[in-house]
């Protein structure tokens, strides 16, 4: 966690990220009370969740599904199209706490919501999972054969991530905050996270991506409304 980022000689931008909401209170309340204190007179950037598409859809579901906007050849007979409105409703709950948190930061100079990095390429995930006994043990403990696990296509995970970005942008607009999406420089031609910004695990970006974010935040300074 980066509780505070130095910008010039004065700490002007506070960066915080959402805790694991599934863990529940009281930890979260203490965390955000701390952020409220810290953010007085500062530009606050909240990196909110960002892993919902992985947490729910890293592996191909049964039955397989697709959504309008997915470009691959997934509109075949075996694939169920799901309404985009249903996907949005599914993810909506992960944004609900923002309606309490953002108003509580009323003494901040500005508030910016930021989403997580773009999805990683399927090959990267596949290599990570196959090489890590932890994941194979999870599957084994649940009685699932690794061969039965098919990683969700790049195109579908990307579209799910795009929907999440749209929901965050809407939340930001509704709550009077700014929205900053993952840096375009971090993404490849398909929109996925470029290999140079991938950490060696299944879901995270690396420290180089972190530096890219800091650069973006530097650009943000002065642009956000006071």
């Amino acid at each position, binding site marked *: 966690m980066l509780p505070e980022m130095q910008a010039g000689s004065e700490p002007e931008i506070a960066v915080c990220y959402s805790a*694991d909401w*599934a863990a529940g209170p009281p930890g979260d309340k203490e965390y955000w009370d701390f952020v409220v204190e810290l953010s007085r007179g500062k530009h606050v950037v909240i990196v909110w969740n960002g*892993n919902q598409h*992985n*947490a*729910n*859809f*890293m*592996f*191909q*579901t*049964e*039955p*397989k*599904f697709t959504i*309008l906007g997915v470009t691959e050849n997934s*509109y075949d*007979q075996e694939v*169920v*199209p*799901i*309404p*985009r*409105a*249903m996907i949005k*409703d*599914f993810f909506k709950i992960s944004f609900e706490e923002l309606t309490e948190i953002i108003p509580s930061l009323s003494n901040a100079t500005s508030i910016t919501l930021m989403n997580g990095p773009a999805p990683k390429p399927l090959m990267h995930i596949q290599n990570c*999972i196959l090489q890590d006994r*932890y*994941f194979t*043990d*999870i*599957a084994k403990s*649940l*009685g*699932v054969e690794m061969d039965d*696990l098919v990683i969700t296509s790049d195109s579908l995970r990307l579209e799910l991530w795009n929907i999440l970005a749209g929901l965050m942008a809407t939340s930001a607009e509704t709550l009077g905050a700014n929205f900053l999406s993952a840096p375009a420089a971090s993404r490849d031609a398909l929109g996925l996270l470029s290999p140079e910004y991938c950490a060696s*695990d*299944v*879901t*995270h970006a690396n420290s180089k991506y972190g530096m890219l974010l800091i650069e973006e935040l530097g650009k943000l300074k002065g642009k956000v409304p006071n």
Partner: protein
Amino acid sequence: MNSNPYLAQTDKAFWSRCVSRNFNADSLWGDNSKSALFHKDDLIVSAGSCFASNLIPWIEKEGLEYLRTEELPSQFKDLPENLGYRNFSAAYGNIYTARHLRQLYEQALGVRVPAEDRWHIDGMVIDPFRPGLAYPAESDAEFDLLKASHLKAVLTAFHKATVFVFTLGLTEAWQSKVDGSVFPACPGTISGIFDEEKHEFKNFSVEEITEDLAKFIEHLRESNPKVRFIITVSPVPLVATATQSHVLLASTYSKSVLRVVAEQVSNQIENVSYFPAFEIITGPQAPFEYFESDRRNVSEIGVAEVMNSLLQGLTTSNSKVIDPQIETKQMTKSKAGKLISEISRRIARAECDEAMMDKNL
């Protein structure tokens, strides 16, 4: 004593012997030659009014397979859905009239394209034939994708079925003045806008419903020749009538028409059986408690009586043996989906919690 035809009748022909006393719902149809309604390996599809969906949990509990061709991944199953669309084999929801059933199949076959096939309302694209869907399309392109998939699921279900249960619900309907397409609800009630220029009331006759049902059976058997039909009449009275009659009179008329249709079709067409859910619930022998206090909705014990009777026939038939311990394909698929979802969640949780350092967690 002079001989007469009644002397040759069994007890079931005499009200005093089988209704006034010793009433047994199974006797309504149990010694009928068509009593083998379900077989162990049947793929069962149902459609009709809401009463038709009551069947599903009961037959699945018995280890029979209710065919589902439009299922959601387990992740989405807890999301709210209106009006029970997904209760049925495909997500067509309640089909109250035989005309609607016939038209649905014609749409699925691609031989019918309704003139009024979508409504644009508040930025969403509504299906007039499934107006209460909780998650309508956001664009015409998405509507086309979702509708095509739905109709494909309908076709798959109808063509794979070995038993098709249809519950006749209503004679009253609203239809398009342009092409006669029947809507499941009057435009403007659940969704849409009622337009006198485009929409009209229709109260179907015995002849019209008989023709619709017979044509549907005939058309379906062109692709699925062995499918057997079980026809029931919903005992649930009309919630409202669009005629000038009192709703009780309109309801009696409607159910009478439907009951005649059921009798005619089951008598005239091979492998079509009538199951007397209507009589079990509404006959003079039926206990007061078979209806809820609104005297419209069938109570749980009423539903149980109908289903037990239906399944009693199943278990007494020598053509099938039902093992309640059988895990249905539905349960197996659902379990697998939940496991895969759980693995996604654990991986994301582990990495988000930075718990990778302790992989024993």
